[in-house]
């Protein structure tokens, strides 16, 4: 019952602004029966069968405005009739037609919707209803004087029943189709207002939340059709574009489109070097929700991934490793909820739990424990090493992804900043610079950080050992100079690796080498 009332009003050359028809009757007080409410605030209201919502006299100047303001969508919160009247919102679209046919050469009319408390409904979706209604009425009036020739008494006749049907159908079915004459039909559907999707970055990984193959048809956008097969929760947008041989910008637009309609989620690139940690939602989700634990068990249990072996997730260093088998497994359980529902029906609860290497089942609490043991500073690889027995039959990518999808895990991204002061082209005089920087570094480290200094010294010794040969240094320098551009602390490693098409391992090796200068890695 979002629409409380619909009323049709017009400017009458004799009576001024007046309501011609209103649905339901009596919901709007007209000037006849509420002379009192013109006084100091709303005073008394005559008790009427359907309790009135508002008084026309207070809002008539907005509903039937002067000619210059016609053709604008107006929304108005009328003052409450009595302290107990629920808040309402009047949506209207006054129109003015000028023609010698009319007295005073103009005809001003307005079809207005009275909505219930605007805080609780999606007002925007009704705005298009009002607009469309107004435009249809204008063309009807222009075609056949549909409105101005209406002589039916108040609250009866064609226009009245049209308003009645519109209100009932929109309230009950959120859409309506009201035939008016041979040529005109009122077709209206309420569309929810969706927020604009966030920006899609090249290193984001889309994952379907619906079975897209049941929706797609050959009339879809060509790029969209090309990229769909590669959206699997593993491939980044860049990789999808490359695999589908599609333009990266168009690919991003397509993903954004899917995102707008909620068909995909965005994830990060999974790798064994990545770090994940719990968010503040941890307690309220996986820890408390036994059903979510079961859902997770079904989603990650490799026993349920037909044909796909655990090895499907290739430890690809930085890139998103993914083979055909992997893609298949991903698609099988894309819709975590949908898939788990079907699985849940035909499996005993006891059977869903993944087994450890020793063959014992992992219960829901153990799953919570596994999630809880992911933390800052611990890569997935290290985490696996700590829990290898329990993770024996668990698809780790799915395990981690499950947490990210539900929102109780977040990815800790790495960023790098070049801390050495000086020009950006330090690459050329690298050795000299490095020495200078060494001194600089030592002086700084005087203050305290023993740990850091040791770390850094160790890595410096290592670098000294594998100082690159002169031969390959040209290419290497080119790449290094490209990397340097990303080292202002604002680019995460996923971005750098995706843009430069290098693995995270290579990136880290290069950052450690002294050619680039002193680089500090920050995880966030």
């Amino acid at each position, binding site marked *: 019952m979002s629409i409380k009332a619909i009323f049709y009003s017009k400017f009458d050359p004799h009576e001024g602004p007046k309501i011609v028809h209103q649905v339901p009757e009596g919901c709007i007080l007209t000037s006849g029966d509420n002379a009192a409410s*013109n*006084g*100091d*605030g*709303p005073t008394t209201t005559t008790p009427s069968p359907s309790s009135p919502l508002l*008084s026309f006299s*207070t809002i008539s*100047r*907005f509903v039937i*405005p002067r000619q*210059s*303001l016609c053709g604008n*969508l*107006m*929304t*108005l*919160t009328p*003052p409450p009739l009595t302290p107990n009247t629920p808040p309402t919102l009047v949506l209207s679209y006054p129109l003015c037609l000028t023609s010698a046919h009319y007295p005073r050469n103009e005809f001003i009319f307005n079809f207005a919707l009275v909505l219930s408390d*605007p805080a609780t409904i999606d007002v925007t979706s009704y705005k298009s209803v009002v607009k469309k209604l107004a435009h249809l009425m204008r063309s009807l009036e222009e075609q056949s004087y549909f409105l101005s020739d209406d002589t039916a008494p108040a609250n009866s006749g064609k226009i009245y029943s049209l308003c009645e049907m519109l209100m009932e159908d929109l309230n009950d079915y959120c859409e309506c189709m009201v035939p008016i004459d041979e040529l005109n039909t009122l077709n209206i559907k309420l569309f929810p207002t969706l*927020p604009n999707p*966030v*920006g899609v970055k090249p290193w*984001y990984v889309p994952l379907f939340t619906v079975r897209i193959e049941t929706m797609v048809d050959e009339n879809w956008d060509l790029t969209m059709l090309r990229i769909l097969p590669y959206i699997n929760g593993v491939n980044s947008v860049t990789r999808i574009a490359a695999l589908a041989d599609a333009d990266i910008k168009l690919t991003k637009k397509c993903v954004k489109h899917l995102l707008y309609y909620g068909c995909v*989620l*965005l994830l990060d690139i999974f790798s064994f070097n990545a770090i994940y940690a*719990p968010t*503040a939602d*941890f*307690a*309220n989700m996986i*820890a*408390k929700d*036994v059903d979510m634990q079961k859902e997770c068990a079904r989603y990650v249990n490799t026993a349920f991934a037909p044909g796909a072996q655990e090895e499907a997730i290739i430890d690809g260093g930085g890139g998103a490793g993914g083979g055909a088998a992997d893609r298949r497994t991903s698609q099988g359980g894309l819709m975590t909820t949908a898939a788990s529902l079907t699985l849940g029906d035909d499996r005993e609860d006891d059977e869903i739990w993944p087994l450890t290497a020793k063959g014992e089942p992992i*219960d*829901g*609490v*153990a799953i*919570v*424990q596994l999630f809880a*043991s992911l*933390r*800052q500073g611990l890569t997935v690889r290290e*985490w696996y090493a700590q829990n290898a*027995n329990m993770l024996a039959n668990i698809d780790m990518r799915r395990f981690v992804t499950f947490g*990210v999808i539900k929102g109780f895990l*977040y990815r*800790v991204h790495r*960023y790098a900043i070049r801390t050495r002061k000086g020009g950006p082209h330090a690459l050329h005089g690298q050795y000299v610079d490095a020495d200078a920087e060494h001194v600089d570094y030592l002086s*700084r480290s005087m*203050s*305290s*950080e023993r*740990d*850091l200094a040791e770390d850094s010294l160790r890595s410096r010794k290592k670098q000294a050992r594998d100082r690159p040969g002169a031969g390959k240094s040209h290419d290497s320098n080119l790449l290094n100079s490209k990397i340097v551009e990303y080292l202002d602390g*604002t680019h995460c490693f996923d971005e750098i690796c995706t843009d430069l098409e290098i693995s995270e391992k290579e990136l880290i090796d290069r950052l450690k080498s002294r050619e680039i200068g002193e680089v*500090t*890695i*920050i*995880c*966030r």
Partner: protein
Amino acid sequence: MATAATSLNPSLVAILLVTQARTGSGAQLVFHYPPDPLSPDRDSPALRSIDDDEEESSSSDSEESSSEEEFNLFTRRVQNGVESNSDNRSQRSDDEDDDQLVKKTQDDGSWKPQWEPLLGLGEDGLVSLLAPGRAWHKRKFELGINNLTFLGRPVYAREDGLWRKPRSKKSRSADEEGAQQSSDALASDSEKDQEVEPNTKSKTKRQPEPSKSQLTMFHAVFVMDPSPLEQTMRVKDMYDNVAKKFSKVLKWEQSHHDYVWEQSELLHSIKTTHSHQQSPTKAMYTEMLRRSSLASAIAKVFDNISASKIAAITLSSKLSVSFQIPPITSTSYLPSLNEPPLEPGLWLTTATDAVSTASDLDATSMGGALQLSKNFTLLFKSSPQKILKDIQTAGGPLALPLANFIAKANPTKSFYKISVAAQMSLGDIQHLARHLVYWRRAVAIPPLHQRNTYMVSPNANINKLVSACKSYEATFPMMPSLPKMLNSLCGTPVPYGTLIPSSDHKEEYYRVLAWLMRDGWVTQLRTFAYVRVSPEVKKAVREREKEEANSNRTNRNKPPADPNGSDRDVPVSQSFGSGTPTTVASSLVSSFKQRPSLVSRPSSDGRQSISTDHTSTHGMQQPKHNPKAASLVLSPQRASPEESRWLDYIGSTLVGATEIETAELRQYWPMFVKYFTGSEALERIAVREGLKRKFVWDTLVKMGLNLDGGVEDDKGENKGILVAFRHW
């Protein structure tokens, strides 16, 4: 939608002032600001969010508004009215303006209002709608035209043409003061002053009885263009914090000094002169802003509110008021990639969540929106010296206590400790702290401590890293660089103290930490835990029950289950209540966001709360436990009888390295158990129970707190009693 609230963007397009006079000429638009609201250099936020791609959200500066209140005393002269007696500077700038004005009027001859049609609708049409009728008197007026929202609170003169009741002057102004919610000492105080001694030599002949004003209505209209999904929230913020308060202030000035009418006449005459002279808009606005205190106030409100700052305006030499839309200072929710990101640098924490701290909300102190726990402290957003200076400039009755408090405040000391050390009452301190927090001088945080763990916030504003490095280096030249500090705070979580090389460095490291916290670079990593009940425990409890039931059956002829349960319960409830009930119940906790509390309230009388819970949990959501699987005790405070038996059993089987230790563990188990709710940070145990942090932590570790290793122990068995996890 929850996240939308965190972005600063008041979407203010313009402010219009509409007045209506007795003479019957109809309402007129006296003033609007900015001169041309829809000029293209104002880019609409809606458009901005549509084509985002490469664009990163604009960085918001944290030092905004710090200089705002300096303008508190900046009075503007009203023509042939109040002589500005205080400020030489303003007079000097007036003279300069005069010179400029002459030049401007000369250099361009053509005059036409460049803003017409105003807001795409035309001045005349708009005015006809913005004088809505008496039905809206002192009510929220909200009109949408296409994508613009016109928001205001029109005020009409009384039916008899007066602006306040003839005789009851006293009660009237008391009313107004009561309604004055600006909670700002400045505003209400100057009102009092006015009451006592209105020494303004204004043109209005000061009369004992209110005179009939020519004015019948005024309406300050705030024009906004919020995005459809944020509409409700933005409009509410603007109305509650700015539009309504502004209207009330104007009403007060109007009823006491016919202020709005005088200003409106003044502005009208300036407009008329300029349209005769055909001078350019800019010259006209320069003059209006210079000569009319109302015009300059409106301009200031517009400029500052649309920049999400505090607008401190001065209407007369005696009345200055500040408005702001209070920004959100913290959130616990980290949006996913699919959702709009948070304002970068926003403090990410659960410390201010009602949920995590609900267990010590004091029912009597629930009145204010801004509750501050006595276990919290203040973190100043700029240097205390600067705040002190501003406060001294602004004056007011709070200046002295504020200065006193600021001098004593320390981010490592809780309000309670400050109150003890400075001999100030806790209530006073909390009041002053609230004032500072509300006016964006400080945020309330749990005190910094070296035993706490801090980590780089996932919402740290990494885009500002380079510039932050510079200011950091200027502030802390002797410390490791900012990237290095962040680097050491983003690895495996360790207590902050382990980074401090020696006690000589402690102060400086705390200062760095405060700096990092203030700009949202780091946040405290807090630890939460649940008790895990393993199948073995369940089995043992079951067997023990059977045994007892058997012995009961043989000894007495009673039904087995019932007395058994209640027998077991008595020690449980006693032990749970045995903490330090007074501390638990009396400590207050801040809550910026009011959420329904999910956590039960520990009453000082544990026995009662548990016995009432019996009935509820029994009937409703007694979860079916799988005897073969482990389970978590989600809310030990309202544990079912079965869970209570498990908890008891676990407590009784705790073993330490020595006998004393064992006894200690078993003694503290009931006290600690009530914090194992998954939403109560374990770091708070020490503060709340008055224990040493180190002791609490060591005890927790002995109880099975394991934050470093894998899930299984060395023998490959999953035996943990506590499932602990950490987040902000």
